[in-house]
């Protein structure tokens, strides 16, 4: 189980690197998005860039979004497993309680990420229909993941040095 955790973590990191790498490669060739990777943070730019791409690239991105659903399952499982195993070894009552909360937040992050992906798939569909902003769900997702990681570190780091 311990090794599975690290293998999954490696898969997550590689996948994320690949995903960001592809995104920045696509963007740097587009004149109006020559800020490269920074444009990933401007949703309107992403949508207009997407619709300006050749169909083959569009298909590539949409299929990557589909793969992202599997990625969501993997990282959620990883966060839940990590929090659960950490909970089994955390003697501080309040940290133990926060690690238990992580299980809920992990599920919440996964749901928010799925909704975000579904909005992206909708916004990338052709012909272009009403554009919805996925910001709220993105915020929830990163908020939850950030909180989970902070709690995990707060629990793990002191135990590591103890």
């Amino acid at each position: 189980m311990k090794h599975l955790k690290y293998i999954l973590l490696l898969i997550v990191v590689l996948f994320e690197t690949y995903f960001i790498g592809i995104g920045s490669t696509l963007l740097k060739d587009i004149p109006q998005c020559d800020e490269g990777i920074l444009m990933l943070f401007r949703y309107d730019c992403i949508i207009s860039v997407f619709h300006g791409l050749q169909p083959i690239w569009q298909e590539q991105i949409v299929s990557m979004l589909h793969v992202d659903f599997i990625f969501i399952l993997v990282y959620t499982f990883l966060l839940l497993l990590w929090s659960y195993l950490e909970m089994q070894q955390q003697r501080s009552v309040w940290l133990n309680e926060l690690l238990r909360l992580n299980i809920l937040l992990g599920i919440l992050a996964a749901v928010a990420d799925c909704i975000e992906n579904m909005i992206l798939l909708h916004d990338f569909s052709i012909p272009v229909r009403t554009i919805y902003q996925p910001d709220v769900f993105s915020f929830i997702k990163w908020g939850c993941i950030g909180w989970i990681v902070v709690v995990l570190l707060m629990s793990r780091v002191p135990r590591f040095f103890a």
Partner: protein
Amino acid sequence: MAATDDEETLEKRTLIGQLTRNGISHGGLNKLMEAANVDDIQEITKRVFDLNEADLLRKIAIEGIFKKLNTLKNSQRNERYFAKIHKSFRSGTDNKVVFVEGDSWFNYPIILSDIVDWIAMDKKLAVYSSAAGGDWLLNMLATREYVDGLSIHQPDFFLLSGGGNDIAGMLRLALMVNVKKTSRETDSAFRHNLWAQHLIEHSYGTVDKNRWENAIPWISKDFFALLMLFRLQYYSVLKNLLIGSSSPSKFQDLTIITQGYDYLLPSFNSGWGIKPWLWYVPVLRWIGHGKWLKRPLMIRGINDEQLQKDILYVMVFLFNEMLIELGHYFWQKGYGNRVFHIDSRDWIQEGEWTDEIHPKPYKFKAIADRYIDCINGKAVSGHPVYKNVYKVL
């Protein structure tokens, strides 16, 4: 010789008959306890449950997802146990090996940190677990997993928790109460049971008279029969481990610790609230909350909430007293420093339950701390220790 055997068998039959008819004395039960063998206990089980043991064991077997979750949690715990052992844990003078067998108070397979989770966090303790959420004492004793486990691991301590599911499983709690209150207190099953009266006359805990008097006319003779069966079952386990059945025991240095739950709380409350960190309460209440205690009592027409609580109060009070008294019995036999009991009665208050029968994790932790004190032989100020009893306060 044959005549003597026949006389003994006849006496045993008489005592078993008295037990199942709720008419056995304290001395009679002790005599039966000493004389009863596995077949006798099976015979009593059959009479108490109205089913032969094999059929009963088939009915109560833990299957499916619960079995997998129990196994998964035990395998994680046992991995940590082996990790400690691999680091020459047994060479450390202060280190102790603990073997646990029990129910969901010792292995709550998801989300909650149960008693054993907290105990296993202690660096000086290596805990091997074969506990399973939902397990009956009857099943633990029949499968005898603990015997193999104890033989292999030769632990310093054996922690045993069982009986809760035998009372609350399969709606059996309905059998433990009368449909109608006995009209006079003197007609109650308790008043006919000399052993139970002896238990209360010599009780360690102080009974709340109002609650007792409110509930006792509702408790049926089936409850007392089950309680006496528990005593025989626990005694057979303790005796075999401490004394040995035919030869000297293999476990000369083993210390055994029992526990008897807290006053369980019948409820249908779904547990929704505004505290996000208690999100697991409504989630876990989907599993069996209300069906273990509240529903069987209502089947018997006991709808008054206070009466429901009082009935569970009396049952848990007596269950603890039975275990404490059994511990004293071993003290009298000279095994006093090898049988202990963790008394957590009145420790968990109304808002501190995850569901009807499981406390919130921080309450489990306090109980686990008493176990650790007991294992380390410490009497902590403010937590009275009386003979073989460690009280959670």
